[in-house]
């Protein structure tokens, strides 16, 4: 089944087309979910919610646009909505409490990290930082778009990105300190 057949079948609510869609795109979509969430369980919840949205609104996809980009965007929006809901009940991370990256170490540039290690560092970020970082760095959104998407000020987006990067730098430095002795041995 090619992309067009999958889309057509999903619009007709055919089970075969839905199966084919899941088989083809589940990895990509779950990868997105894992980056925007704290852990695997939350990622599964977001994926489930996002898939239902995609199957339900498949007829809204307009030809000529990138299908992968469309479904990825739906999944990102689902993740953002998920955290907006959670925000009301979740513990609010105070920015001042987050440690600021030290400028003394640049070890992480000399070390190679696995995707899993990098993913763990992202997962450890506070929800707001993680979302802004993902949107700006990985998805390539502008601060204006992020601010509109998240309903925050542009400067908030900028500052959160800056702090996110600093935090990641610190985490990577710590990680490299552990890894380098092991590599020497």
């Amino acid at each position: 089944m090619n992309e067009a057949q999958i889309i057509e079948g999903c619009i007709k609510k055919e089970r075969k087309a839905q199966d084919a869609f899941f088989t083809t795109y589940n990895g990509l979509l779950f990868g997105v979910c894992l980056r925007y969430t704290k852990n695997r369980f939350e990622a599964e919840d977001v994926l489930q919610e996002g898939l239902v949205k995609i199957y339900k609104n498949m007829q809204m996809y307009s030809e000529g646009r990138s299908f992968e980009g469309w479904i990825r965007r739906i999944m990102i929006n689902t993740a953002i909505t998920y955290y907006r809901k959670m925000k009301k009940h979740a513990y609010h991370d105070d920015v001042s409490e987050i440690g600021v990256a030290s400028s003394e170490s640049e070890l992480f540039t000399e070390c190679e990290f696995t995707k899993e290690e990098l993913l763990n560092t992202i997962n450890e970020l506070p929800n707001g930082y993680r979302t802004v970082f993902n949107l700006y760095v990985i998805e390539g959104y502008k601060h204006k778009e992020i601010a509109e998407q998240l309903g925050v000020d542009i400067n908030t987006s900028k500052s959160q990105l800056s702090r996110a990067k600093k935090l990641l730098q610190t985490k990577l430095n710590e990680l490299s300190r552990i890894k380098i002795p092991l590599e020497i041995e």
Partner: protein
Amino acid sequence: MKKEDNITQLYKDAFSDFSVSAPESVYKKVQLDLGRMSLLTWDPTRLNVFYLALMSGLVALAILGVYPTETAEVNVTPDIISNTASVLPDDPIQENELISTIQPSKELEKAEVVQPVLLEKALNRTAIINITSEIILPIELVDELEEILIAEEIEFVEELENSSETIKDKTIAEETEVDVREKISLSNSRVEPANEFMRLLSLDSDKKGALTISTKKK
């Protein structure tokens, strides 16, 4: 600035084609959600809650509409009739036939010819079998009726044999004596005292035990 660029580049490269297989359980949950949504959404081409409501309404209507008729039919089923004490048909002619087979009438007892009576018996028996087949009696009851019929038949044949002997005796008596049946008839004449009657009645042993009635009076 350089560090930040390095971080950006590092993560961009790592996650540009990041893909992790999702567990199948997620897809099962998705299918369940879709099924539930499909059931609750109006779609003329698919089975949904609206169709189910319509169907259940029609079934309920059909049950309510049909139920009283069904009960009326149940009241007249043959099984229930056969379970009741009375097995006699409503038709008086058939009823008489049935009674005549079970309790032979006095007319049959008086009959002098064997063959027609047996034929009548046979006819009566056929009639009751026909009746029983029509009203669908239980097998046990039919067997019981047949046994009664057979017993009655045997009894009747025995009686008939006795009566034929009596008829023979009567013929002999008629040859020798005057028929006084009219005189001793209880129905057509006055009732005489028993002693008087017994005196008139005497048994002649010389004529093979034939019953004779003396016409001589005092």
